[in-house]
């Protein structure tokens, strides 16, 4: 069995492959639901209604999607330049803790903001973005200087970042009012993202995330930096030959990617929880990678993929209450969807040949 390149790719092939991927995902996940002794159709109905079936469901899905859009963008831009940032989880926590740290620095003795609120808000956002960017800058410099594999360093930095945050939560940034729990002080209400709707958790962080997605799409497509970044990602050697500053481009990409992941952390702490705990993110940083891949590294696609993943998680929660299938089915659905999309994309460009090879040819 081997793959053979298709000579002509049909225009509507992506449509077929998309539908095929969805059907395949539903079928595989359906088998597991069936195995868990639940009615497949009603389980899917519960997931769908739990994700999109009511005002509450929709706002919850969008609340979930907010950090996922940002970590998805962080992965998408980095992967475009072939900078494999697996460290968005750590960058998210660093962004969140930096936002809280900045807020405590801006307080006076009376526990009031020492700065005008808009200025303090901007400073908090900048601190979070800078913290995420700084965390990714370390492995990127190691990569450009010493060719250290960034997959390993960014992945391992996640644990270092998490333990560092844990240290702060048990030390200088421990909330004395939290009765011993490792938890940071709560942000003053002036620094919180305002809610978009009454009686819902969805906040302005969503608008920020969507705005950044559009901005990123524009930058990638229409700017000199975007072209350099795509050139470096597609073929570093050719980019270097053309005179593109490869290392400088990678460093800029790292700063943007890390900042986006840091902003995801800011959004969570200032939009949802109000304080930092160690279980603030259920792996949003890692999910960002899945979302970026699902979206084909397209920033606009990331928004939709993040809503899909967020909706699946929220919907599966509702479904597990309704038909008693474990919520882990959400992970299965997301993972299967990713694999199905990747395979379907491959199949639009190649066909599988099962029999007798026509001889691997190629270069002389």
């Amino acid at each position: 069995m081997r793959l053979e390149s298709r000579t002509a790719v049909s225009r509507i092939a992506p449509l077929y492959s998309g539908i095929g991927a969805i059907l395949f995902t539903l079928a595989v996940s359906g088998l597991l639901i069936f195995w868990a002794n639940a009615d497949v159709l009603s389980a899917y109905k519960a997931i769908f209604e739990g994700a999109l079936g009511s005002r509450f469901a929709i706002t919850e899905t969008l609340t979930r999607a907010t950090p996922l859009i940002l970590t998805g963008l962080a992965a998408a831009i980095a992967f475009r330049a072939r900078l494999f940032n697996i460290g968005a989880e750590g960058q998210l926590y660093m962004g969140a803790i930096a936002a809280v740290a900045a807020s405590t620095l801006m307080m006076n003795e009376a526990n009031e903001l020492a700065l005008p609120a808009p200025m303090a808000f901007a400073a908090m956002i900048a601190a979070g973005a800078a913290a995420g960017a700084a965390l990714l800058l370390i492995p990127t410099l190691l990569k450009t200087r010493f060719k250290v594999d960034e997959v390993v360093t960014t992945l391992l930095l996640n644990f270092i970042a998490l333990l560092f945050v844990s240290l702060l939560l048990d030390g200088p940034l421990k909330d004395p009012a939290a009765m011993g729990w490792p938890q940071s002080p709560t942000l003053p209400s002036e620094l919180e993202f305002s809610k978009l709707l009454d009686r819902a958790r969805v906040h302005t962080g969503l608008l920020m995330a969507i705005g950044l997605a559009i901005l990123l799409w524009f930058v990638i497509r229409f700017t000199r930096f975007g072209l350099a970044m795509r050139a470096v990602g597609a073929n570093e050697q050719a980019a270097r030959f053309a005179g593109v500053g490869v290392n400088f481009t990678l460093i800029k990409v790292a700063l943007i990617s890390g900042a986006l992941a840091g902003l995801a952390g800011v959004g969570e702490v200032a939009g949802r929880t109000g304080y930092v705990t160690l279980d603030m993110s259920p792996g949003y940083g890692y999910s960002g990678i899945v979302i970026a891949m699902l979206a084909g590294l397209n920033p606009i696609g990331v928004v939709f993929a993040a809503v899909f993943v967020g909706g699946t998680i929220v919907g599966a929660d509702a479904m597990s209450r309704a038909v008693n299938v474990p919520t882990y089915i959400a992970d299965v659905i997301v993972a299967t969807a990713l694999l199905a999309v990747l395979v379907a994309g491959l199949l639009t460009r190649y066909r599988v040949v099962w029999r007798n090879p026509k001889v691997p040819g190629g270069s002389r």
Partner: protein
Amino acid sequence: MNALTLSHISKRFGELVANDDISLSLDKGEVLALLGENGAGKSTLMNILFGHYVADSGSISVFGDVLPPGDPRAAIARGLGMVHQHFTLADNLSVLDNVMLGTESITRMRTSRAEALARLRSLAERFGLQINADALVRSLAVGEKQRVEILKALYRGARILILDEPTSVLTPQEATQLFATLRQLVAEGLSIIFISHKLDEVLAISHRVAVLRSGKLVFEGPTQSATKSSLARAMIGRDVESSGESRADGRRAISEKPTLLIEKISAQGEDARISLHDVSLALRAGEIVAIAGVSGNGQSLLADVLFGVERPIAGHVQLNGEPVALNASAMVKAGVARVPEDRQHVGSVGDLSVWENAILPRVSDARFSNMGLLKSNAARGYTRELVSKFDVRLSSIEHPIRKLSGGNIQKLLLGRELSESPTLIVAAQPTWGLDVGAVSFIHEELSRAAARGAAVLLISEDLDEVFALADRIAVMSRGRLGKALPTGHWTLESLGLAMAGEPSEHAGADNHAA
């Protein structure tokens, strides 16, 4: 009985005929030398022999039995063994482990190291290949690693050994030792195919010689009847005009001041065996100077230095009397047109669109961007102009450039450089692998650029091209550049000998071209 018979082997890759009706035989106890330039079809033939490719027609028999096509395991089972130019050893394993690797069935629970060791020892003794079986391969010298490769093949029962450029990695002393080993192998009844382009070695070791050129077998005969110059001529081709008659005339507006002055450049390639030593050359406006040589002698490295992608250890480069920084963007800004050897992977970014590739080296230019924003309409207009002026055939400039044929990519890359009226053009293998039409188009453009007053440095392994275009030719061999002499001074023989590293009255004697 013949050990190996190849009859009427033909293999095409698209338009290219890699092997054209090749028939060869190898006797028991014989060393057959297989000569040919790069791209002559040697590797294709060996790949067919080992079942990596299937020939379009023809058959192979080993010791009288027909070899099934496309089956590498059958080839090894019948007694074929290959020693590759680049070793295929695991550095972190011992010699014995490397030799045993892959010979034992994975369903067996126990390895019989003692047995294997005894067998390895007896082979080593019989063929005079001393080796410490417990030594880590990492710790061995290159010549010893090669011995391990030979032992590996023998351990697998090889009776026909194929050595691909075996001396290219060896010191002269190691080579002498290798030759002694080969003589002993042959005395023990093995047959050897020795692939090389070094004429001395071929004459020293082989019984018979076969020469391939452009996929055809152009010479076959006993080594005794061959001479160095007859082999060089066969390898390079008789039908090349060796005088300057075919060159485009009427340029020669050669000024005295050099456009490009390369002074004592030394560099070390990523491949440790390739380096440059004190390379100097002066290029004047309006002339085409060609650097000829067998691939792997440092020409690509020199090209990379001049392209600004490889930093030299020593030496410097002057452009129009001014020192120039050797980095890609500085070269572009200084008006150097650069045409790289690998147009698909170095010259262009395959996944970017045609127009993005057309502007990529000059994207910071005010024509193509403003305050960081691309002027995509201007860029598209510019690309359309290039496409029509340089006759690039394509359906849309929005498509990724990898969809274009090699010839069309090359025309676009040449166009994007030449349309900037460069003072210096550095072209590495500009017509490699292109069809006749594209080749003549590119030759014409280069001649015309020289006639307009550009200095052209042509780095090429294609001697037809070198003779057709160059005003002066210099030969590169083992990282040293010979003197650039007017084309009329060279004959095919003298050029071929210089390329093979033979000192002659023309080249190699003194190394410093002014």
